[in-house]
């Protein structure tokens, strides 16, 4: 019996908690992608770099606050700097919309044109971020490291295996829940949110109903900037901030949005967790678990794929979904 509990604790510690954390980050990222797709009708490849940009501004804000001696106690100071990062990412998004996307929107450019434009902007923002903060690793986490560590857990339960909960993991999951709840409240309960859904559902009828398209676009970019910064900062706090890793995040984020049903906010969230759990479950070493639940101690790691292939998992899921169910779990619009 204890063996089974120990096995479950191993799974919880190395699979459940990390996947919930990573899934929350992906879900917030995918929510931004799906909003742009639903309202502006294109796949925004610059989203990963927008996340990096917002995170960079948050890091500057964090450093500023730290140098002034401000801290959030046990919580990371970066949470206090988030509004600044959000403001930065929103300003950048609005600037790029005004100077680049608006021109193509007025010419009624095809979604493919928008996609290529967003790839261009992805390189532009990525270059800007690396130019300003440098390509290296930045660790901007401070505050208490663990809410409870593996050792505390073992002492409290008397089990052989420990379950740790890092502050960044708890902060990520709680923030994601709050942000998603606020987002759904906004989209389903407020007049402005409903007008965004109406615009996404049927643009012509929305115009006929007197919904102002410029305002919908403005609000979309504000939400996207905020979501990107929150997702990026949580990811950076949990792992570390490295500009190139945000470009690589683009694939799992798009996979999340598409698996859930692109254009559907609920799908983005479900997709984020599906991708995160799959990535971690497939690359997890089950050796200890097997040893606990059976009498046999495997010599190998009992790992389906090396962690280096993590990114391949989301790619494979993406391909399978596009072949088998192109509209995704929650039937978004097909790409």
């Amino acid at each position: 019996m204890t063996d089974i509990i120990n096995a479950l604790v191993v799974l919880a510690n190395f699979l459940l908690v990390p996947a919930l954390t990573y899934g929350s980050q992906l879900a917030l990222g995918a929510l931004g992608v799906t909003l742009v797709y639903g309202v502006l009708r294109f796949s925004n490849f610059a989203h990963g770099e927008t996340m990096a940009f917002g995170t960079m501004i948050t890091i500057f804000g964090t450093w500023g606050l730290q140098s002034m001696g401000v801290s959030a106690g046990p919580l990371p100071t970066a949470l206090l700097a988030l509004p600044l990062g959000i403001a930065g990412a929103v300003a950048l998004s609005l600037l790029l919309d005004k100077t680049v996307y608006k021109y193509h929107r007025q010419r009624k450019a095809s979604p493919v044109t928008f996609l290529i434009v967003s790839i261009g902007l992805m390189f532009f923002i990525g270059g800007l971020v690396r130019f300003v903060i440098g390509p290296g690793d930045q660790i901007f986490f401070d505050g208490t490291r663990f809410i409870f560590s593996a050792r505390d857990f073992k002492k409290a339960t008397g089990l052989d295996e420990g379950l740790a909960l890092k502050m960044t993991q708890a902060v990520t999951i709680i923030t994601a829940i709050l942000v998603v709840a606020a987002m759904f409240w906004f989209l389903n309960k407020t007049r402005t949110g409903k007008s965004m859904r109406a615009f996404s559902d049927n643009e012509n009828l929305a115009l006929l109903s007197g919904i102002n398209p410029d305002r919908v676009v403005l609000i979309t970019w504000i939400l996207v900037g905020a979501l990107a910064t929150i997702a990026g900062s949580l990811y950076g706090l949990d792992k570390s901030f490295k500009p190139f890793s945000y470009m690589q995040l683009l694939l799992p984020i798009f996979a999340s949005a598409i698996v859930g049903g692109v254009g559907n906010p609920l799908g983005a969230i479900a997709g984020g967790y599906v991708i995160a759990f799959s990535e971690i479950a497939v690359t997890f070493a089950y050796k200890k678990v097997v040893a606990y639940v059976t009498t046999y101690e495997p010599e190998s790691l009992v790992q389906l794929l090396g962690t280096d292939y993590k990114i391949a998992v989301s790619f494979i899921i993406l391909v399978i979904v596009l072949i088998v169910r192109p509209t995704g779990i929650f039937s978004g619009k097909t790409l």
Partner: protein
Amino acid sequence: MSFLIGENMTGGYGSADILHNCTIGVEKGEIAVIVGPNGAGKSTAMKATFGMLNLREGHVKFNGEDITHLKPEERVLKGMGFVPQTHNVFTSMSVEENLEMGAFIRTDDISDSIAQVYDLFPILKEKRKQPAGQLSGGQRQQVAVGRALMTHPQVLLLDEPTAGVSPIVMDELFDRIIEIARMGVAILMVEQNAKQALEIADKGYVLVQGANRFTDTGEALLANPDVRRSFLGG
């Protein structure tokens, strides 16, 4: 002078003209129906009065005011309502949200108007929490008409409101449309079911190749042997 009138309209979506010197008008509390063969420019003529295509010649007057150069959204503010033939509801939104979106330009309390639409279409009250995309064709058309009514338009333009619904539902929809007209709304509609539509029409326009062929009361058009032979199948 009609309440809403598009006079001597000539124009089209691109460089080629679809309408040729076409005149369409409707009075308050009246139902005017545009009929004609496929490709006669029926929908185009109605859309022209709503500002959805460029007129090279002619003008549109609403309540005596020249609105030829107003955009469709601006005409909604003036008191016109338009129900497109297809894609006329927000499929992912509930019936009630569809009505709320119809009243988007209003800043006052809309609960009375919603109640009014539910009185007119009782089935919608039952289904108010359901996404409009899950309703039947006839119910969807009711949502579409209800959405347009939310701004209390003085003129309601309907593009083939009975397309794709069963004959029973069609009669029911026509009854509702008559009811709306009795409230003092001017109704201009395009219809495929020419005979049934002319039966409820105060005024009928038969268009052929973008031009007026016959204009008369609905009754007179139904009695006219030329119209019967050419357009109503004898």
